């Protein structure tokens, strides 16, 4: 299941609150969306251009220069094996962002397909699929992710599998709920009356109208996925060393908390800023899309 979910009435209430006149609905007039996109753009650029921004290799150890404080050469100092913290931060951001975004693609697709099937056809297909959702939801998010990655063995592949097995249910629930409402609309009845196949109705008529909800949700889902990846990295179940990862950086730095607090603090702050940018984008998209639908 998703780590965090809101019940429908809350989202509806927030949507109503944000209803705005049409003219204000350009994306750049949405302060939340615009600032979120700019912030995320800066982060992605910084992560992508890491080799240009820092001369240091994130896995190159230099024991003669271990645990240095922040200076002009090492902006955030160095860790216990003399690796530059700023370089590791940028490269770690790169690793975690990439895995986090790729990891939600498969659950997004699987959840959308199963959710549309359950919502459109109803009946026993719906019952079976929704019971399946109930079973996955019965496990606490972190417990299931940690247990699955442990069983599958640490590493990227296991992360993708675990996030997929757990993450699809949220998309299935959202899409199913939206389709249940949308399929009673006149345009769907007309399409049916016109003799279009179910697949075509779902693909061409229903999904374009309901997919926005899943896209909005996927923003907070990426945040939760990155948090899960960082947590797995902290426990040594994530990306294996020496590949820089923000979670393992926090774990390494923890031993030097009292003397070198920056080793633990900055990787966490980087995650917070990524989360902030994606949350802003999600909220902004919700404001942009929802009033137009009602």
């Amino acid at each position: 299941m998703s780590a965090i979910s809101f019940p429908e009435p809350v989202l509806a209430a927030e949507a109503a609150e944000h209803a705005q006149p049409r003219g204000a609905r350009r994306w750049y007039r949405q302060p939340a969306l615009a600032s979120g996109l700019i912030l995320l753009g800066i982060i992605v650029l910084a992560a992508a251009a890491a080799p240009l921004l820092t001369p240091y290799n994130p896995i190159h150890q230099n024991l003669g220069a271990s645990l240095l404080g922040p200076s002009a050469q090492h902006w955030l100092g160095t860790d216990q094996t003399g690796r530059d913290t700023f370089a590791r931060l940028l490269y770690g951001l790169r690793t975690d962002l990439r895995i986090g975004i790729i990891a939600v693609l498969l659950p997004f697709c699987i959840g959308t397909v199963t959710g549309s099937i359950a919502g459109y056809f109803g009946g026993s297909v719906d019952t079976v699929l929704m019971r399946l959702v109930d079973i996955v939801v019965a496990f606490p998010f972190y417990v299931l992710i940690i247990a699955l990655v442990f069983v599958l063995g640490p590493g990227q592949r296991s992360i993708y599998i675990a996030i997929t097995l757990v993450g699809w249910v949220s998309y299935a629930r959202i899409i199913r709920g939206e389709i249940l409402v949308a399929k009673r609309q006149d345009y769907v009845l007309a399409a049916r009356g016109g003799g279009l196949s179910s697949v075509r109705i779902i693909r061409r008529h229903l999904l374009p109208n309901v997919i926005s909800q899943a896209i909005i949700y996927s923003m907070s889902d990426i945040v939760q996925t990155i948090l899960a990846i960082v947590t797995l990295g902290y426990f040594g179940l994530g990306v294996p060393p020496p590949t820089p990862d923000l979670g393992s950086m926090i774990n390494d730095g923890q031993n030097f908390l009292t003397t070198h607090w920056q080793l633990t603090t900055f990787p966490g702050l980087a995650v917070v800023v990524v989360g902030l940018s994606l949350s802003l984008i999600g909220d902004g998209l919700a404001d942009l899309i929802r009033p137009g639908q009602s």
Partner: protein
Amino acid sequence: MTFVFRRLLMLIPVAIGVTIVVFFMIHLIPGDPARTVLGIHATPQRIAILHRQWGLDRPLVSQYWLFMDRLMHGNLGQSLYYGVPAAGLILSRLPPTLWLICYAAVLAVAVSVPLAMIAATRKDAVRDHVVRAVPLVGLGMPPFWVGILLVYALAIHVHAFPVSGYGTGFGGHLHSMFLPALTVAIALAPVVIRSLRASMLNVLGAEYITTAKSKGVPGPRLFLRHVLRNAVIPAVTVLGINIGFLIGGTVIIEFIFAIPGIGQLMINSIFQRDFPVVQGVTLVFGVLVVLVNLLADLSYAALDPRVRFDR
């Protein structure tokens, strides 16, 4: 009564599904599970014993029957590290976890209700915007990182709370578990604040509030009796939906703060590759969430008659 009965009936497929998922965990292990679990230095005899114990030499369906048969007798297998039954081990570690869950839920509500009230009573004022920024920042904070920083600030620097541990006696638990419970509450608060604010705004716009105002109901009384009472139900629902997140968060936090609960047991067992214990804890967590959800649904039905007729 029929609502309670139907709700209990829905429990059966989920409970069976939970056991199937936990059972299949063995088969997700790449290669021969017994060899992987015991490590490369295991003797063929030990591997053969584990094969027999887990019934790996039988067909899948009969393996599941064996698993269920043992489960019904309270047998979760033998811990490979401690050499004692996993069920007893898990049971003895349960109280600190339950303590942490309840403490964290109370703190989450204690933090969220005032903040949501501050925001909702002056919509779009500066204080509303400040409160609305809290979830945006809070959702992206890794819980274990928050825990580490809290330890650094409040335990190592200020000495206000112990760095770790469970404490003894009721007061000791309250004192020792404050930081861990606060960490879980901080992770949960963003969602609760957001929902509570939205539902308070909804209630504030309702006609019965206008009526109460025109009758001259004084402010504090209006807020407590008319607004908060109705707004709190959706917030409790949000807490209920996210109970899995609350319970799952304790796994990480128990490890950070060295609280001897089942979350810490799970992480330690992962480090020790103690598979039966990991499997058992996963099952217990699943059962815990299912039971808490049941309890939440039943208590809504008792508190709010509308729920019983709605479903």
